[in-house]
């Protein structure tokens, strides 16, 4: 067989070095070719990760036993010997910029799995990589951004071993990596309002469709898609069906999901009502506060603590006194509040102002008397606050501390305003009212934390109302928790009052519960989980929107934003892609056929989205841990894998 020269560029020799020429015959296998090149370079190193990349065909030559002939390589082929695993910059949903080694030769689906593995993100099939927005300002920012290098992280390919606190063992190696893990698993502090307004806000469905065009093709490798070493890619949740989120194991996953959801809301990627926005704001404030103060306490065990302390208390009592009656006495003595407060009933159409009474707070009821001396007599009135609505009316600057109560009674709501003299009094009574409205008494263990919550909120108001006071690091701007729409609509003070209103319903939640609640409300939004694409249906002249969700396809009118038609996957018979004319055709039960061309994204992305969601639904309970990758490719690839 005739011998011929094959020229191969070797990455290790530097960009300027001329290609290495080796003499080969057509029946030489790829392994042999690599061996000869390596011998010729005379560099002693571990070449096991290197493979040949065929530039003209944009292909990896990964099968060492295949011959040159079988691969179809002739003397004109330009081949490069390069490492398959190279550093890549990954930006997480919380904005964290990581540098880690990723494989450039496996399909992106597997690369994503490999990237998620050391980060301990379970169910990586729900995530994927997409290109960042190309912009001119990116270059400027590049230098400022802090990059966290994870390329030196040592980890095994097997199941991730974690420490008791959920941290993977490989992060425990040094304090640096431990700090890194904390950044991954604890939600980042509230962004500055400028950071929210600076990022682009989608103004319509067409804008919302733009990011979808940036997803990488899961079935092709990074190299084939023009991704270079050290390029930046975003790692995001792509499919909105989050399987089996368990706070203990999914610290990173949960945090990143929360961050993605938070930004979707702050940037109005997903629409919500004002009430919902305020609740999201309150939850963000709460999560922010709890995760900054005690990041170690991941799960709530207050109930158990209560029981334990109660048992201990009881134990002590039982040892000292055997008389049960005494125990009952001491256990049932409930704490009380009493003070002079001013009261106003706004219901009556009089010009009467606030009037002072002697108030006592016991269990869940407020009673009031003419004066302290008369408190042994029958009260003027007793009001049970269980189920009532409590809202604050506070202006620290003018020393106005009011509690507005709306107490349900058989014939309607009883409106009562209580005015306190100072912050301390206000926080105690407010906390008592809030607990009572939930049916809890002053004896409840959450009382002191409730008081603290109120006080910290007052502190927040102090800092935001006094403009001339320089902001400390602890001061919080309410604008950080809502989208820019509300920056314009409300002044800081009003905004904070609204967030405070919503906050009282969530202030008692633990970090995990608050995260969970945030995600729950996010997932309950009507537009949740719909990815938009601008398409043109066959036979139609105007652009329309195709919405892809986890169980259905939506046809949306571009101008009215109305959903015109819904098709469910379970009524789907088959779908086809005509790659030549870039058309997706779907057949549903009952001879319903649709076909469309994609305008904003390639039809591969649309095809992959539909197939991906169907794949997600095939993840059954039994085969929970092994991912059927073959099925994924079958459903999303659209052609047979073309790796040689």
């Amino acid at each position, binding site marked *: 067989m005739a011998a011929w020269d094959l020229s191969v560029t070797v990455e290790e020799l530097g960009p300027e070095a001329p290609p290495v020429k080796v003499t080969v015959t057509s029946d030489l296998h790829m392994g042999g070719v690599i061996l000869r090149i390596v011998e010729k370079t005379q560099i002693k190193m571990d070449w096991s990760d290197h493979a040949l990349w065929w530039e003209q065909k944009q292909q990896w030559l990964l099968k060492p036993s295949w011959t040159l002939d079988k691969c179809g390589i002739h003397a004109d082929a330009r081949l490069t010997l390069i490492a398959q695993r190279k550093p890549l910059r990954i930006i997480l949903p919380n904005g964290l910029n990581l540098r880690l080694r990723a494989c450039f030769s496996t399909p992106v689906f597997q690369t994503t799995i490999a990237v998620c593995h050391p980060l301990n993100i379970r169910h990586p099939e729900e995530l994927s990589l997409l290109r960042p927005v190309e912009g001119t300002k990116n270059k400027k920012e590049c230098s400022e951004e802090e990059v966290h290098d994870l390329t030196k992280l040592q980890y095994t390919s097997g199941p991730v071993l974690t420490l008791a606190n959920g941290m993977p063992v490989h992060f425990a190696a040094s304090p640096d990596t431990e700090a890194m893990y904390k950044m991954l698993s604890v939600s980042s502090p509230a962004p500055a309002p400028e950071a929210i307004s600076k990022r682009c806000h989608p103004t319509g469905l067409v804008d919302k469709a733009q990011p979808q065009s940036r997803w990488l093709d899961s079935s092709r490798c990074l190299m084939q898609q023009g991704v270079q070493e050290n390029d930046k890619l975003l790692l995001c949740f792509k499919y909105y*069906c*989050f*399987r*089996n989120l*368990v*706070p*203990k194991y999914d610290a990173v996953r949960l945090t990143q999901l929360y961050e993605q959801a938070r930004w979707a809301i702050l940037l*109005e990627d997903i629409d*919500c*009502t*004002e*009430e*919902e926005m305020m*609740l999201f704001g309150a939850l963000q404030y709460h999560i922010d506060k709890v995760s900054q103060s005690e990041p170690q306490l991941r*799960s*709530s*065990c207050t109930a*158990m603590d209560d029981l334990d302390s*109660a*048992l201990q208390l*009881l*134990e002590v009592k*039982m040892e000292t006194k055997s008389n*049960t009656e005494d125990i*009952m006495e001491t*256990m049932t003595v409930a704490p009380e509040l009493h003070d002079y407060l001013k009261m106003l009933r706004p219901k009556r159409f009089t010009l009467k102002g606030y009037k002072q009474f002697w108030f006592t707070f016991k269990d869940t009821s407020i009673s009031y008397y003419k004066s302290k001396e008369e408190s042994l007599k029958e009260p003027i009135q007793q009001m049970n606050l269980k*189920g009532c609505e409590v809202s604050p009316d506070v202006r620290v600057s003018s020393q106005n501390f009011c509690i507005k109560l709306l107490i*349900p009674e*058989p*014939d*309607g*709501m009883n409106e009562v305003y209580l005015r306190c003299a100072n912050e301390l009094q206000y926080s105690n009574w407010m906390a008592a009212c809030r607990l009572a409205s939930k049916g809890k008494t002053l004896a409840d263990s959450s009382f002191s934390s409730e008081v603290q919550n109120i006080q910290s909120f007052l502190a927040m108001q102090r800092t935001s109302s006094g403009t001339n006071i320089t902001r400390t690091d602890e001061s919080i701007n309410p604008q950080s928790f809502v989208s820019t*729409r509300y920056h314009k609509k409300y002044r800081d003070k009003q905004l904070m009052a609204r967030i405070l209103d919503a906050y009282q*319903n969530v202030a008692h939640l633990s970090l995990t519960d608050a995260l969970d609640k945030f995600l729950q*409300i996010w997932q*309950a*939004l009507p537009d949740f989980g719909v990815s938009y694409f601008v398409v043109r249906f066959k036979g139609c002249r105007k652009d329309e929107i195709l919405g892809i969700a986890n169980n259905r396809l939506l046809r949306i009118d571009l101008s009215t*934003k109305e959903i015109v038609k819904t098709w*469910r*996957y*379970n*009524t789907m*018979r*088959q*779908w*086809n*892609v*005509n*790659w030549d*004319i870039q058309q997706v055709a779907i057949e549903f039960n009952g001879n319903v056929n649709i076909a469309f061309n994609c305008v904003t994204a390639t039809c591969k992305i649309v*095809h992959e989205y539909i197939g991906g969601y*169907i794949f*997600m639904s095939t993840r059954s*309970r039994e085969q*929970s841990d092994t991912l059927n990758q073959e099925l994924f490719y*079958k*459903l999303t690839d659209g*052609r*047979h894998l*073309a790796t040689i």
Partner: protein
Amino acid sequence: MVAGSQTEINLSIGFTDLNESLNELEDNDLDALMAALGSELDATEEKLRLNRLAGDQRRVSDSSRGQPLATPPTDHTEGEATLCPGEAETKADKIRIALEKLKEATIKKLVVRVWMVDGSNKTLMVDEKQTVREVLDNLFEKTHCDRSQDWCLCETNPELQIERGFEDHEYLVEPLSAWTRDSKNQIHFLLKPQKYALFKDPQERQFLSETKQKDKDILLRENFEGPSLKVPNLEGPLYVKEDGKKTWKRRYFLLRASGIYYVPKGKTKSSTDLVCFLQFDKVNVHTALDYRQKYKAPTDYCFVLKHPCIQKESAYIRFVCCEDEHCLSLWVNSIRVAKYGTRLYKSYQTAVRRALVPSSTLCLTPQSVSRPSTPSTTHKAPATANSYSHHSEQKQLATAPPAVEEDYLSEPPPDFIPPSPPGGRRNVV
């Protein structure tokens, strides 16, 4: 037997004297009830009650407060405990029993009269730990009815002309505590096909044409077995009674998980324009009767949203009127889903299971043990003690995550033919 004629529709909550109230109850269950109460009556307790009645007259707590070991079973366990003193285990037991007693002492109990379909009534004792489900089971046993999942305990308020079926997971005592002393409200035990209609015919809410059982199952699973609440997509015009006026205003309403919203005049349906009409945290949804006459409503298909405590006409009640009966049931049932979420579906599943259990085996099922209303107090203490310790165990488990991924399925199973490979080819090797 003083005030007990069939027409007398007074429910005996809020009596001042136990004996007097017992006199009012005329029923076959009276004997059993007397036995239950009688065993707990003694002088000290009477004293305690008198003290407490001054504060809350509705409370009929049985209270072995200050009565060390009044009931035989606790006596027994306590006896065992003293047999092996000094051991940590017995101490823990003692503490648990003591805690249990503390709990028992403050359990609120009510004697309620439930009206049957045939106009007769039965009297039950309900304590605050009992769910409506348990009370229903109790009634199944008493009435030997067919145990269909449509059986419902329904509260009527004649003054407002409204009614509401209690949800199975509710604690019956809670809504009853909101009744006034002279309340004309009643509880009825009846078949209400609307109770779980949305689970039996889920496609109706979604306006879908498919009615195959398989598709129904998928809809149910998708909407109610997922990790998060899926509120039905519901929107349309409704009439609202304007505050303090006799007129009804037509508005376009939308239901969301966070509440009911309407589209303000001249605005679009986009989320940011919507005005919140009401949030569900503190209101219940009731259906109204004959409002065309009472409030000059456009139709008779009205529902009412109000705080459970409000019993009389008030500006704080929201009156809403629908175009037709179908629309009314859609709104009422969807609001229930938005308010209660997956709990409602779980109750439905329990109700279906209950309907399948033959009556003979039901007595052996655990709930007969955990039902604290069983007349004989002898079982009460140990049973509740068990359930208590079990409870704390559950809490412990809840904080630890499940090792295997279970009770979770958010998507429909793949019951379609996998797609054929795409028609076109690419220029691949």
